[in-house]
């Protein structure tokens, strides 16, 4: 790639770095906002910001974003409806419970690059290693869940995943006594889980050595969780451009056609589950270590699966940025937004809504969903492909009105609104994949200039 030198190369290289630079800037801005800017401002200015968007909520949003990005791989890319995503979340959390927490049933002590005191009892392994371990463990579970669902479609697939999500919670609830062995301490769960360590930064006194749920620790967590979300976004975007990503999209659009064209259905489906589960595992560890500091079965209810799915659907299925925005919006609404809106109305109207408004959480989410389905089915920031599909009238509608004219109209619409540059990019990467070694890469087509 580096050897290829044509006119558009420098421009394209810059474009390639556009989003990472933007993303890093946003995360750094958030970090400095809470680390430096807000504490130095006068209270009337900083208080509303802290009230509407506390640091803890930002961290929660970032954690949900990891989850939504993981589910987006399964639902948005591969089109496999998963109603039990919380299963991976739980397993990730429990991996953290097993590998980086106080003991609950065994007495050996094991430390590996852990930031906690060496005298602390229990198994304590470094956060990053646990993340990888949880990711791998969850991928394996993903394959297990994926395997029996390979032959299923649509509703049946959703039901099986729903079952898995419910089963795993019950499994952990009863895990205090599996044939006499205490595997995961049953309902009380495991806690406290080690905070994330900052290693050299902590040793140098720049950051707190342990990122606990303190004010200082939470500000630094923005960077750690931001990095994890960044990795997930990067992987999501790159994988979509590659062979696997395109296979997923083909599978989503038409399974039968995809298999006819030689997409290996079994492998592609299983990989979708495995990759999605990997993200879920990382998110589970992040949640357990940075957000809740403990895991228990009651934390992994069906409601969480639904909320993640809503984030994906409302944000824009298959669009990484849409999903991230959706995750931020809904998790903010869920954890702090509604309460704060209540506080706001109270200060206007003298009502007492701060405690009661969050009770209407699901009513509001439901309304939001209905409105979105009426006016913007493809989500907040839709994927271009989905948008084109959605704007096509359904067959029955078309037949009643004269199919040919409508379809033609929709197609010309889609062509007119399609992004020529993006098409060219995809075509180009396809050429590169197809055999960049043998043929010199053709310069991208310039449809926009024709």
């Amino acid at each position, binding site marked *: 790639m580096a050897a290829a030198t044509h006119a558009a190369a420098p421009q394209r290289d810059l474009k390639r770095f556009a989003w990472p630079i933007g993303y890093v800037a946003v995360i750094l801005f958030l970090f400095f906002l809470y680390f430096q800017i807000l504490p130095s401002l006068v209270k009337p200015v900083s208080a509303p910001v802290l009230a509407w968007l506390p640091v*803890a909520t930002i961290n929660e949003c970032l954690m949900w974003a990891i989850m939504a990005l993981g589910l987006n791989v399964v639902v948005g890319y591969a089109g496999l409806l998963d109603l039990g995503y919380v299963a991976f979340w739980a397993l990730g959390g429990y991996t953290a419970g097993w590998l980086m927490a106080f003991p609950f049933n065994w007495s050996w002590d094991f430390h590996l690059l852990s930031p906690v005191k060496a005298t602390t009892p*229990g198994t304590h392994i470094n956060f990053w290693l646990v993340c990888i371990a949880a990711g791998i463990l969850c991928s394996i579970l993903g394959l297990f869940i994926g395997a029996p669902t390979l032959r299923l479609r649509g509703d049946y697939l959703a039901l099986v995943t729903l079952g898995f999500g419910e089963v795993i919670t019950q499994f952990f609830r009863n895990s205090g006594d599996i044939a006499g062995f205490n595997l995961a301490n049953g*309902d009380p769960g495991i806690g406290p889980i080690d905070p994330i360590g900052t290693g050299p930064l902590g040793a140098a006194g720049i950051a707190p050595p342990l990122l606990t749920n*303190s004010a200082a620790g939470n500000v630094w967590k923005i960077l750690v969780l931001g990095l994890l979300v960044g990795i997930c976004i990067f992987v999501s975007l790159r994988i979509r451009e590659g062979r696997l990503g395109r296979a997923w999209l083909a599978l989503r659009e038409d399974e039968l056609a995809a298999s006819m064209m030689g997409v290996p259905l079994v492998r592609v489906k299983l990989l979708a589950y495995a990759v999605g589960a990997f993200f879920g595992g990382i998110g589970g560890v992040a949640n357990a270590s940075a957000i809740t500091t403990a895991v228990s079965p009651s934390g992994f209810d069906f409601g969480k699966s639904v909320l993640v799915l809503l984030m994906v659907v409302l944000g824009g299925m298959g669009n990484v940025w849409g999903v991230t925005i959706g995750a931020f919006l809904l998790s903010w609404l869920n954890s702090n937004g509604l*309460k704060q809106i209540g*506080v*706001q109305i109270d200060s206007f109207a003298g009502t007492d809504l701060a*405690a009661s408004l969050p009770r209407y959480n699901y009513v509001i989410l439901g309304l939001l969903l209905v409105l979105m389905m009426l006016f913007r089915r493809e989500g907040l920031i839709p994927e271009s492909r989905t948008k084109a599909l959605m704007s096509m009238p359904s067959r029955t509608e078309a037949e009643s009105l004269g199919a040919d004219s409508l379809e033609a109209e929709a197609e010309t619409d889609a062509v007119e609104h399609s992004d020529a540059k993006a098409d060219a990019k995809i075509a180009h990467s396809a050429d590169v994949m197809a055999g960049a070694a043998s043929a010199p890469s053709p310069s991208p087509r310039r449809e926009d200039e024709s």
Partner: protein
Amino acid sequence: MPARSLTRIVALGAIAALSLTACANGADTGTGTGDSAPTDLVISTDLPLQGASASTSESTNNLIQLYLDSVGGKAGNYNITLKTYDDSTAAKGAWDDAACAKNATDHVANTNEVAIMGTYNSGCAKIEVPTLNQDSTGPMLMVSHANTNPGLTKTWDVGEPEKYYPSGTRNFARVITTDDYQGAGAAAFASADLKVKKAYVLDDNQTYGLGVAKAFSDNAVKNGIEVVGSAHWDAKQPNYTALYQAVKASGADMVYLGGIYDNNGGQLVKDKVAVLGPNDGAVKLFAPDGFTGYPDLLKLDESKGMYLTFAGLTQDQLAAAGGVGAKLLTDYQTKYGKAPDGSYPLYGVAATQVILDAIAKSDGSRKSVTEQVLGGAGITIPADKSVLGKEIKIDPTTGDTSAKDLTIEIIKDGKETFEKSQSIS
């Protein structure tokens, strides 16, 4: 189409209304930046304001506010204001671990806040206490009125209680006795007063339920009651007929429900009566304080004659004892037109009294407030000042209360009625 344009207008209107509220500025939550006078301090409550426990929590908040007003909002030289936190989410209808963790962060971040009255659920306290414990300006004090899980203050499960106090100093106290006493008292009462011979122990497979059920089973055996069987009940089950058939076959003359009413307790009580007959009949029904303070349970016909234990004194007893507590209950009645839900609200005030006393003796810093309770001579509220009508004494080494009151109640005429005071050896 007019219908469609109407929906559009409605939708736009809703969105406009929402965005208007969102654009408003000047929020009221003061996350202090330390530029106010140190004589103004904040204490907070941390309770589940959604779901089944909401009414109890609301009563607790109101009663504490009433008490604060009655002492002029002062503790020593400090002006005290109350801030309420919600540790539940609507989606779950109960306490939520993420909400608890977030509250712990907020308590620490709110610089004027010196102590927390709460939590209602032991599981939530186990998440919050380590965070409060590691506060750099603290540790920050938490005094609970309802956390009965023994592990928070004494050796119970592996690693407890040390693992909740990473800094090595304690910062958690409570004004209520623990589950192990509750199980012991219930077993003694069942054996001596009800002449129970065979008990069947059910639990909801959650932390609290398992704890009380275990304590009851152990003590039942000591009191000569045979435990003929035990089982978990599943909160999601539509009915428990099969479960009670098994109880019937075992020949038990008493059923113990270790758990909380929120976990489908209503159905459990109904089916018990349907299969095993009324509670004042051959098979008695016994439940711990996880079933107290629920108006829904008291409304049930089937709950008549059910025994409840409460790890403290009930409202009736406190009202009868006269003094500060009785006056407070009367004031509440006049202001809100009803009595507070359950017996926890008054214990909430008792915990608040401990906090206020500690603040009065301290220099106004978190560390100092905590030291007053868990260090030195500890806190003692004399009987004539205490809302419980008797001395409240907190052990400075563990944070446990010296009081070992256990009340046996029976549900009669749709009310929790005092049956007997059970002393615990």
